[in-house]
């Protein structure tokens, strides 16, 4: 069985289209992030208390909200968590009283005595911890990008890493943008997903680069050959790129639907990231390599002309 025979899609020729499309997506992402005042952090980073309750019967959010507001928790965020009898209550920092979770539990128990519940999960994040987590996340994203790019530069040449950097920033920005547009919270696992996407996207890009390097070795040095070679390389690896991303997407989609509510946003981040990452490996990383090389080459030729 074959999905792709010998293809000859003109990736390099249509690269302007791809750039335009990507720039649109990136612009939407950045605009959305600005409008929302940055990514929407959950209590992992902002600090606060979160309680997940499982009631015996479906429960109305209104009832819980009234009870909490009456006791002074005006800004509590209350949502259903996957099922109508599961609820997540979130309270920000502010009241520095220690046992918010116990207090909230007893308030709800008193307000809705006919519908007993168990506490599935409690998360309490003090301001210091939240602050540290943000720093850790930034350090993690920074270091992973740096290390990976150093690796690319070591295995290939500098010009290859330009395309890689571009693809990376492209992937991270758009994934964050999608989360912003859909107003989904960024939690620690989402950062983990982002880092995984960083690594995985490079995965794809390197496979193409590898093929480009291999094919270039068989040619003489000439700039017009570059575009054809790169194009051919992308086409040759197309089958592999799509299939691998396909299999990974299959498992992540399964995770999205069957992995439980806790992992749902995590799986969503991976789905977006893999899709965007594959797209960027094919349509962004290699074309930028070509453009960069041409630009550098053109300058070189102009300088040579000037000297002559």
């Amino acid at each position, binding site marked *: *069985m074959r999905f792709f025979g010998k293809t000859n899609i003109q990736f390099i020729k249509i690269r302007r289209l791809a750039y335009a499309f990507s720039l649109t997506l990136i612009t939407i992402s950045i605009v959305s992030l600005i409008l929302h005042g940055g990514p929407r952090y959950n209590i992992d980073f902002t600090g606060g208390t979160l309680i*997940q309750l*499982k009631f015996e019967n479906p429960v109305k959010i209104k009832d819980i909200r009234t009870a909490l507001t009456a006791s002074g928790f005006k800004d509590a965020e209350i949502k259903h968590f996957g099922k109508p009898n599961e609820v997540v209550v979130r309270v920000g920092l502010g009241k520095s009283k*220690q*046992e918010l*979770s*116990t207090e909230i539990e007893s308030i709800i128990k008193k307000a809705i005595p006919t519908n007993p519940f*168990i*506490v*599935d*999960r*409690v*998360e*309490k*994040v*003090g301001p*210091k*911890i939240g*602050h540290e*987590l943000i720093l850790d*996340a930034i350090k*993690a994203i920074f*270091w*992973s990008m740096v*290390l*990976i790019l150093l*690796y690319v530069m070591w*295995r290939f040449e500098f010009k290859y890493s330009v395309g890689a950097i571009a693809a990376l920033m492209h992937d991270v920005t758009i994934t964050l943008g999608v989360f912003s547009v859909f107003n989904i919270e960024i939690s*620690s*696992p989402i950062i*983990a997903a982002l*880092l*995984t996407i*960083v*690594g*995985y996207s*490079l*995965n794809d890009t*390197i*496979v193409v680069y*590898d093929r480009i390097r291999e094919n270039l070795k068989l040619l003489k040095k000439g700039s017009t050959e570059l575009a054809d070679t790169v194009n051919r390389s992308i086409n040759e690896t197309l*089958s*592999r790129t799509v*299939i*691998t991303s396909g*299999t*990974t*997407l*299959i*498992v*992540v989609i*399964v*995770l999205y639907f*069957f*992995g*439980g509510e*806790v*992992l749902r946003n*995590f*799986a969503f981040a991976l789905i977006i990231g893999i899709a965007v990452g594959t797209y960027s490996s094919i349509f962004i990383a290699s074309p930028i390599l070509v453009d960069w090389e041409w630009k550098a080459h053109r300058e070189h030729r102009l300088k040579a002309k000037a000297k002559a």
Partner: protein
Amino acid sequence: MKKNTRNRFFLIFVVLLIAGYFLYPTVKWSMMSDTEKEQLKLENQKAYYALKSKTINLGLDLQGGMHVILEVDVKELLQRLATNKDETFFQALDETEKEVERNDEDFLATFVKVLEKKGTNITRYYYGIDRRTQNEVLKYLRKQINESVDRALEILRNRVDEFGVSEPIIQKQGDRRIIVELAGVTNPTRVRNLIGRTALLEFKLLEDNVVTSKVAERINQFIQSKISPSDTAATSEDTTKAKGKEEAQSLDQMFGSDTTVAKQGVTAKKDSLAHLFEPGLFYLNPRDKQTFLVPVDKQNKFRRILELPQVKRIIAEEAPGAEFLWGSKPVYGGKYIPLYLVRKNVELSGNTIKDAYPQRSTDPSSYGQYEVSLTLNDAGARTFARVTGANIGKRLAIVLDNKVFLAPTIQVKINSGRARITGLDNIEEAQDLSIVLKAGALPAPVKIIGETTVGPSLGRDSIIAGTYSAILGLLLVIIFMAFYYKLSGLIADLALILNIVFIMAIMAYFHATLTLPGIAGIILTIGMAVDANVLIFERIREELEKGKTVRAAIDVGYGKAFITIVDANVTTFIAGLVLYTYGSGPIQGFALTLMIGILSSLFTAIVVTRAIFDYFLETRTIKKLSI
């Protein structure tokens, strides 16, 4: 079979054996029922823990439990250690607290700076024989802070051990934090109290009733003078008078005698705290004329009033060596909370407690309740005898964490060195109190600055969801590979299954922790592991199309793909490494399975499938490759 191939199969076989050996404990463990596990633990504890340490450890998010991050309250510690505390000192402490919360710098260093800004030196408050210069004082304080963390660690460990959770983890993190991790906790509130309680037990004497009555009278006058009239003065007077009478009547019913009620006032003095003052803020217990009773809903207001300088002056004048301490529980049907005027001098402290155990109430008057029986050490017993002997007829307050638990009257001199703390509502309260009293008081309070608690039901659901997704994902990928690459696909599928076995085996060997994101990591690895094989197979297809023989195509395919496979997987591995370094518990679980999965998949994709291909090549003549 060629030598190379035979070696490869031998290697695979050995690895499989080792994997089986590593996994056996986990399999055995998961098949044991809970009662069987309990039995083993009782009969042969060593074997129990040995077996458990070879299994895959389930993370808190899968088995349920609590993960708590504690920090020693340095502000409180500095306050306790200081002498000559004045207004500047307290202000500086508060300011330091606010600033440290904002920029997370070292508390002590910031405190020194704040004090300097106010024109004082820190040596003023911590002067001592060896502590004259600022450096000496700072060294001393640092030592105290570090030691308090270590002592808190010990005490918490004792408390948790007594509580009886299996395999608790209590560790120091950095130099000011303590991590407590308890698996399988079903009552997190109880654990929070157990951990967070300072458990400072002190025995103090109550101020006598003459002094207490005088103080009550003066405070009453003060409140009266502050109550401002409302617009509906006339009517409110009537209603409050009536109300006052009503209340007097109800109190009469309760106490059966006269009560001293804060009466309705008349003057119109208005100030910003006017809202605090109202009638009925407190009563003097008519039974003993020694305890204040404050209605529960007025507690906050009265608390504020007690902080006012005028009231503090009253206390300073009438009862100079005493202070107000609240009772620990509401009384009289939960309507009133008691307030005691207690002498500051500590007659006996809790560090003399040798033993403490819970028991059912031995008093017929408190039938159905529970109590804690204390045994004091020799020094404590002597002091106790002296104090009780000298104060017969007076009331001894048992103060726990600055709240008066109860204040019984000393009937007789107690030589036995034994005492009882009565009036506990249930056995858990008695048990927990015994635990903390025995383990000792924390040198400074610990704050819970972070907590993650997962209930066992969520944990079970997560395992089911995770396992289900893994199996489903695996099946889909297997079917796809079989369809797309036919027989070769099946070979890759076999490698995939071995891959999962190897991942679990490695985790078992290291007693690594499997978390829910960790399961996600394994699922992700399933999708990514085929990558290596896809690379190889696509190459082989290409070479076959170019016209190479089957054997040559396979050789070239593996050869050329190898470098690409390594390059590509290294980047994901680096991402996993960074994640492991900076991530928290569950995330580390994800990073771990990701990294192990990558390494394992490299092995299975390259060595295992190659061996199988070679086997087929050598034992049959293959003209056409099913790929």
